[in-house]
């Protein structure tokens, strides 16, 4: 087995790519009716009769015209990528640099192509053409061919991205003779659009298809997105997905972009009719239970990005909050999200974030009033649950333990979830109500807790709540015995 497979599994890789030169391609064809099609050369600011080369990030871009006559003109942008260069640029980013030294990026139209597009056709992108100013705003018939673009396993994504903009979209899924369908398509777009607009759309949407931008995403990317998105992004039905992916999921940037895109006239928020999100309801239910239990010091086991920790901090009743997670990356995100560095000292003293793992006993978890396992147990293999039970209920032994987990029965209510599928790809199991109840019962009996079952979210008479909740209260049968020495001997 090549070592990179192990790297992929361990997911802790930092290294650089070296190697080989390869290519990506985009061709753009037009017929201009009464005008000679070769006027495309004016629009693109690239002479149809010459092969022109440009140094771009991570390689060389070549522009040439496979066809250039009065009837039709095709410009090709061929990008030869130098992976050594690529590695240099990619080091700070994550995405594809993780894991794969043989990767498909050199061959598929991707964010790299978008960057090359932005550099090579900068003037056209900005909608300037001194030679043919009348053509700039005029829709012209365009055909764009991308022999390989990634679709992230969703072959309909290109259609969803380009069709709302007026393109006729044709995709051909790429296949391997042995392995069948791979996560790439050949993409053909045709439509009548002003060239500058088409280029701007490609500039934004190619990286979105890729979903692994190769450069560091900074604040200025929001402006780039809004500039390139011009007027079309505001009304695009996938604007949220586009913003998210274009901004490499950097949450604050995405929020900022979406806020600027939000048009007061563009209608109600899409999720307003469905009430509060289930995750928020879950946190409220957990907080309510913690307050009812009179807990003051609370451990959030598997705190993720720290949302519950944030909620706990808002309530001065909770004086000691410990968030633990096995993912150091997640803890870093939580720290940033909670703004621990800028937090007032008094509040800051209440909270700690630390790495821990539920499959190991951790003595620093002892002595808290309550522990919360919110949507955590289903991320453990069933075979490892006893270790978690021992560590939490046997070793840490807080007075109160709260557990929430999906109710598998309720999944039929989610139209986008295939039958038998789990709500999250990392879920190792999802329990129905009977299974959860049996587990709760067993754990409570074994470790001396009194259980209580409940649910969170809209109750369905047949299916129950979408989220199951259990409250474990430590049985108080244990009592201090002043004469324990006699009892011992």
């Amino acid at each position, binding site marked *: 087995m090549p070592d990179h*497979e192990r790297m992929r599994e361990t997911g802790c890789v930092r290294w650089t790519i070296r190697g080989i030169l390869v290519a990506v391609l985009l061709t753009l064809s037009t017929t201009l009716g009464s005008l000679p099609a070769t006027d495309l050369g004016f629009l693109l600011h690239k002479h149809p009769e010459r092969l022109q080369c440009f140094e771009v990030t991570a390689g060389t871009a070549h522009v040439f015209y496979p066809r250039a006559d009065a009837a039709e003109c095709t410009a090709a942008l061929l990008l030869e990528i130098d992976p050594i260069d690529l590695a240099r640029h990619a080091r700070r980013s994550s995405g594809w640099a993780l894991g794969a030294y043989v990767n498909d990026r050199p061959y598929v139209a991707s964010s790299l192509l978008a960057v090359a597009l932005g550099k090579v056709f900068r003037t056209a992108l900005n909608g300037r053409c001194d030679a043919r100013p009348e053509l700039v705003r005029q829709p012209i018939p365009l055909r764009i061919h991308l022999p390989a673009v990634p679709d992230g396993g969703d072959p309909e994504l290109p259609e969803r991205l380009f069709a709302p903009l007026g393109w006729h979209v044709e995709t051909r899924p790429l296949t391997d003779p042995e392995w069948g369908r791979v996560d*790439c398509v050949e993409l053909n777009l045709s439509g009548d659009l002003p060239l500058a607009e088409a280029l701007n759309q490609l500039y934004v949407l190619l990286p979105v298809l890729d979903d692994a931008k190769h450069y560091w995403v900074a604040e200025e990317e929001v402006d780039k997105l809004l500039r390139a998105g011009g007027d079309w992004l505001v009304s695009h039905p996938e604007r949220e997905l586009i913003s998210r992916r274009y901004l490499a999921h950097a949450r604050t940037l995405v929020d900022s972009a979406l806020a600027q895109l939000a048009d007061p006239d563009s209608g109600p928020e899409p999720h307003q009719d469905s009430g509060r999100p289930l995750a928020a309801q879950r946190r409220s239910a957990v907080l309510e239970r913690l307050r009812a239990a009179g807990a003051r010091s609370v451990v959030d086991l598997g705190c993720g990005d720290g949302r519950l920790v944030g909620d706990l901090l808002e309530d001065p009743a909770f004086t000691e909050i410990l968030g633990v997670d096995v*993912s*150091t990356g997640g803890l870093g995100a939580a720290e940033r999200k909670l703004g621990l560095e800028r937090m007032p000292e008094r509040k800051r003293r209440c909270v700690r974030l630390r790495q821990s793992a539920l499959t190991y006993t951790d003595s620093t978890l002892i002595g808290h009033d309550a522990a919360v396992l919110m949507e955590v147990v289903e991320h453990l293999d069933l075979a490892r649950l006893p270790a978690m039970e021992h560590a939490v209920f046997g070793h840490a032994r807080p007075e109160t333990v709260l557990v929430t987990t999906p109710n598998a029965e309720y999944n039929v209510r989610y139209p986008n979830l295939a039958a038998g599928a789990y709500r999250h790809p990392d879920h190792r199991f999802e329990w129905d109500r009977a299974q959860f109840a049996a587990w709760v019962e067993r754990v409570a009996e*074994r470790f001396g807790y009194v259980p209580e079952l409940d649910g969170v979210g809209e109750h369905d008479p047949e299916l129950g709540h979408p989220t199951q909740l259990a409250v474990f209260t430590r049985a108080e049968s244990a009592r201090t015995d002043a004469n324990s020495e006699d009892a011992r001997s």
Partner: protein
Amino acid sequence: MNDNRILDLPDLSLVVLIGASGSGKSTFAAEHFRATQVLSSDRCRGMVSDDENDQNATDDAFDVLHYIAGKRLAAGLVTVVDATNVHKHGRDALIRLAREHDVLPVAIVLDPPESVCIRRNAGRTDRTFGAEVVRRQRKDLHRSLKSLQREGFRRVHVLRDESEVHTAEIRWDRLFNDRRAETGPFDVIGDVHGCRSELETLLGQLGYRLHRDEAGRAIDAEHPEGRRALLLGDLVDRGPDTPGVLRLAMGMVASGNALAVAGNHENKLVKALRGRKVTVSHGLAESLEQLSGEDEEFQRRAQEFCDGLVAHYVLDHGNLVVAHAGLPERYHGRASGRVRSFALYGDTTGETDEFGLPVRYPWAQDYRGKAVVLYGHTPVPEPEWINRTMCLDTGCVFGGRLTALRYPEHEVVSMPAQQVWSEPVRPARTAGSPAAGSSAAGDPSPGDAHTETSGQTPRREPGTLDLGDVTGRRILRTRHHGRITAEAEQSAAALEVMSRFALDPRRLLYLPPTMPPCSTANSGDLLEHPERAFADYRRWGVTELICQEKHMGSRAVVLLCRDAGTAANRFGFDPHEAIRGAVHTRTGRSFFGPELTAALLENVHAAVTELNLWEELDSDWLLLDTELLPWNAKAGELIRDRYAGTGAAAESALSSATSALRQARARGLDVGELAARTEKRYADVERFRAAYQQYCRPTEGLEGIRLAPFQMLATEGRSYHDVDHDWHLSVADRLAEAAPETFTTTRRRIVDTEDTASTAAATRWWEELTTAGGEGMVVKPRTNRVRGRKGLVQPGVKVRGREYLRLVYGPEYTEPRHLDRLRQRQLGRKRSLALREHALGLEALDRLAEGEPLWRLHECVFAVLALESAAVDPRL
């Protein structure tokens, strides 16, 4: 002159000097102690304020002093506090500190005449305070002198004469529990509880010869080889002949044939004999009655004996600790009330369960110490090792057995009870009650109500280890490669993988190391070549090599138990579980789900049984290192995503690019060079696609899956890294012959690096293998683990074929300009990583063979995973 004043000090103590300013404390300290042992308050004042006499800095100075003293005492170092200490509150703080670390506080008072102090202070330019201060300090001192013992100082020495300060001699007294110089061998015997006859029988069984008095009563026992008995306490109560047991034990201890530690029952018996009010229960009544039949002299001696018993002993250079109820490492060799209490009663949480019995903390589960700890107190059905500790109380008096452990042989010898001498005090616990499912903090294991635990299966925790076993910067000592460090961030990365994806640590006993390629070939169109591997080993001083065909599959470690009983007893698996072992990857994940794993292990089991390897290897389990074929069995998703995806995308992009360039050329554009490059690329991509298809073949369930074993890793009591590869592969051949549907064999050939014909033939063999589509070969020292001039030698290097490397370096790596760059690859880090991982693997196997506790194995396995997060070029 031999009338020097002798100051006896326990050799682990906190020595508190007491005396007014100018009384000569610092001089005394400098003359009698090492400079590093002395903590001076003046020095500390200077450290925190730049002025040794700045009284405003006193609080901070003592904070520093206490902190350093605490660190030293925790490390078991004698510490001397040089401060006036004339006030009670200051001394109290030091006594608390000593108790916190379970060491004895002792006081040395320096009390020269007032004039001496004043004269000395006057002679110092840095001291500005006058005689008034000295007078006040001396007054305070004299007021406290009488109460120093009461305050808690175990010894108080007062030096008044000025000359004594110089001539006094310090004599370090060994603590009572310090028997480190005694190395045994020992026979360590569990709770006897008045079962004299069984004790005599057991001693006989152990080879002791009994001495009897004229009345025929055993009064001593002697071992012809000088072995000594170690009695773990609770000699008395409940049984039929407490006086008889005491008589024998007292005789053996007096003659030096035995050592005995106190048990809680001796402790209580002494109280009762002294007439103190105690609840007469749990068998005490029998003892008192039996003893009343003895003469007064015997009663007196018995009381003296029981009263004089030490609560624990540290023996054999600190490698063995005995205490009645066990002892955590931080208490070994310490002396304090709570150490004694723990040794007698164990760790109780202060809570009692619903039967009124104390809730006991299972300290052994958390034990991480180096010393073997042997103890009794709580009856167990079978003695078993828990983290280098063993309980030897097997409930003899309740009709169980009387058990001894031979040390250092670690051999258990036991005698069944002649009868049930004492009925259980309380009714047996019903099945399914909390006792069966013991938990760490809430373990309601019943006190001495023996039958409540006897008869139950041994208590097992569900394979949980403590976070402290794996996190942070960890330094592991390995026997073959010295100290190996895993950095804190590496441990953190490994924790995530281990916790989210890996198997239960009880099934994860070993992780294989990474393997470096041979040195880079520096000419031709190859990056790796066999001659380079032979040259590497020649340089490392190894001449006899074995070349093994490299299977293009996935590394798989197979753990197999002969039966459910072995799985449960040796590894603590759930006996009802169908899977008696594991088949896991290099990162500790299970290859298959439960059904397929069980089925595959069933097949392996059948083959091992057919060959009767169980008998041949004298083991009921085995651990096997293998390659699991085909590649796609494990890596299907990866092949589809990475290789097939890349291939298909490249094909589409390059065929379009090629035709676009052709069109451009057709209409007269000069695209020649670009077109040629692109076409060449197209051809390379085709070869790339051919390369990964080589290693895939259809599988369905276990259909098509094969294991290629190449090394036996461990069986009960032994590892195999010192056995040559011919043997290992012969086992593989036999398995493949016995079960061709499960196993496949590995082609190989022997090479002599000094013989050019031999190396040339091996090179041809490699060429044939790789031309036929093989991945390549692995070259190993034939004799297996080898030490060279510079220590441990690489256990193997790989020589991969030209076409295979396209999968690693990309479709077009064979282009000369790429090859030139790739030849710059650096192997140093990879080699170093491989050696460290190899050593950790060997360490894990040796620890496994030696029956070390789980956490000791797990730290090696975990460290391999941690090291894997190091930044090393993964293409190597």
